[in-house]
């Protein structure tokens, strides 16, 4: 047992360097401003004040959360049936093939795939060219909410499908047989057995989709246009263009706290039904 414990150290060192130190640096930046040359840093809450005083930033944060929530819900609605169908395929070989197809797009860089959507959705892009050759009016697709959410769902749905798929395949099939023996309908056994048992998969899927969706900055930038500002774009701007690392860090910290709050909510939602189901 003792020998196993020492194997944790590399991980601890690793996560200290790559996770904890950067987090502390962000917190450090967030609570300071650039001072004069004598005193390099000065403690302040101004960075947070300027975020909350200005309704612009609050609105941007709200819109980011809204887009991320919609994206997550769509990923569940579309991803669950996909995962369910794959998990219930008769032959193991087909399952492997289907999972491969789901992960296949993620082998290509996300930026490149998003650029492809730009070409498809453009005013004179693929879809509109087809519509116009058929004689239908062109649609306004690019630079809309629709385009941004489409881009996000497209990019993040594999994470949702794979999580749900994994939890579905791990499920003990004898529960379903027992339910059938006891005369439950297909719908009943799905609602009372399959769904609760796959909930952990949904929860970790939510985490994997919601987190990148809420902080994504290049999808809104490309598919929404520069006027489509989400919180990730504000942070990017503060770091890369304005050069105000302190304010950028403060926003990152506010984001992190918001996300932790949302994660806590989902965890809570997770605990209740499973406690009730006694699984």
């Amino acid at each position: 047992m003792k020998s196993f414990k020492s194997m944790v150290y590399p991980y601890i060192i690793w996560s200290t360097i790559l996770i904890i130190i950067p987090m502390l640096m962000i917190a450090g930046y967030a609570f300071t401003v650039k001072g004069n040359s004598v005193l390099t840093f000065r403690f302040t809450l101004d960075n947070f004040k300027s975020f909350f005083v200005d309704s612009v930033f609050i609105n941007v944060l709200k819109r980011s959360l809204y887009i991320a929530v919609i994206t997550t819900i769509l990923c569940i609605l579309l991803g669950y049936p996909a995962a369910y169908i794959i998990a219930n395929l008769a032959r193991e070989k087909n399952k492997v093939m289907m999972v491969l197809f789901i992960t296949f797009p993620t082998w290509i860089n996300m930026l490149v795939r998003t650029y492809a959507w730009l070409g498809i959705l453009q005013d004179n892009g693929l879809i509109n060219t087809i519509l116009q050759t058929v004689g239908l009016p062109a649609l306004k697709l690019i630079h809309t909410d629709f385009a941004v959410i489409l881009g996000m769902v497209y990019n993040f749905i594999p994470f949702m499908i794979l999580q749900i798929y994994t939890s579905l395949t791990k499920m003990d099939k004898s529960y379903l047989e027992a339910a059938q023996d006891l005369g439950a309908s297909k719908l009943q056994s799905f609602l009372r057995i399959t769904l609760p048992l796959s909930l952990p998969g949904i929860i970790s899927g939510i985490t994997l989709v919601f987190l990148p969706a809420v902080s994504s900055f290049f999808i809104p930038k490309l598919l929404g246009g520069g006027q489509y500002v989400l919180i990730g774009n504000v942070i990017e701007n503060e770091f890369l263009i304005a050069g105000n690392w302190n304010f950028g860090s403060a926003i990152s910290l506010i984001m992190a706290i918001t996300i932790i709050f949302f994660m806590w909510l989902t965890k809570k939602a997770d605990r209740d039904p499973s406690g009730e189901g006694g699984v």
Partner: protein
Amino acid sequence: MKKLIAVILGAAMISSMVAGCGGTSESGDSKSNVVKVFNWGEVIGEDVISNFEDQYDAKVIYEVYDSNEMMYTKLQAGDKYDVLVPSDYMIERLKNENALMPLDKSLIPNMENLADEVKGLPYDPDLTYSVPYFYGSVGIVYNKNNVPKELVEEQGWDILKNTDYKGKIFMYDSERDSFMVALKALGYSMNTENEDEIQAAYQWLLELNNTMDPIYVMDEVIDSMIGGVKDMAVVYSGDAAYILSQNEDMAFCEPKQGTNIFCDSMVIPANAENPELAHEFINYILSYDASYDNTYTVGYTSSNKQVRDDISAEGEEYYGNEAYIPRSGYENDEVFHDNPVIRENLSNLWIKVKSSEE
């Protein structure tokens, strides 16, 4: 038997270590033949680098960025390069931070090829630190069929707020260019430090944002305007020259209220590892062939006078292209200055403009 294997393995290890050392010392020697160039994306001719490598028996490590600020952030992070190609205001900033090396002009004889328009610019009047690569201005590309030429010339920047063209304009997603447009439209200096003037420009942009439904883009503007997606766009002259060469319906106007004249120039960072070859590279870029290849491929105005005049002469690639040679000597045109306080202020205002909803 085991012993034998151990000996063989040991020998193999030692020999590979020796070979490894040999390898490093070799690459140490050849290091003087490596030059690291950090340039804008899509601003170099197809054969320029390979020709340089052949002629000088050198190896070019070529990396690109898409904004001055991104380049600056990478430098801050500690990356080392031998040649950079920042814009005027960024050169000023790097110069003030003592991050640049004064050039040895005796190693760059081709500097005599430079056009007069790129000499004596305020950020580096004697070209002590920088050698111009491309120069240009900012103007409006418009579709001749939908927007009358007289109207653009009469209204200048104000045409961007002409509601006849609502939903039909592209602007740059950059606080520098947007505020330049607004300040110029209002008749102020684009380098103003007057808070009232900045606020007025902010209101101007807010109004534009809320009445015109503009789309803010960066380099996508090139393909989109070639495709004729919108009627008007604020575009850098070099990109405009390319757009005009690809789509005959498009025209270019440098507004009467004045605009920004910019110059991207090659500099050598103070911590460059191979300054000699960097000088060679700069000198090579100024040569006729390399300059020609660059400007022919990219569309930005060459700093090499002969190349610029030849390529815009009758029958050549940019003949009659009104965007190829930017206007010079117009009193309302200005070069951008770096001011960190204003920069941060504008950048925050710009975010507010973009995220405001009508």
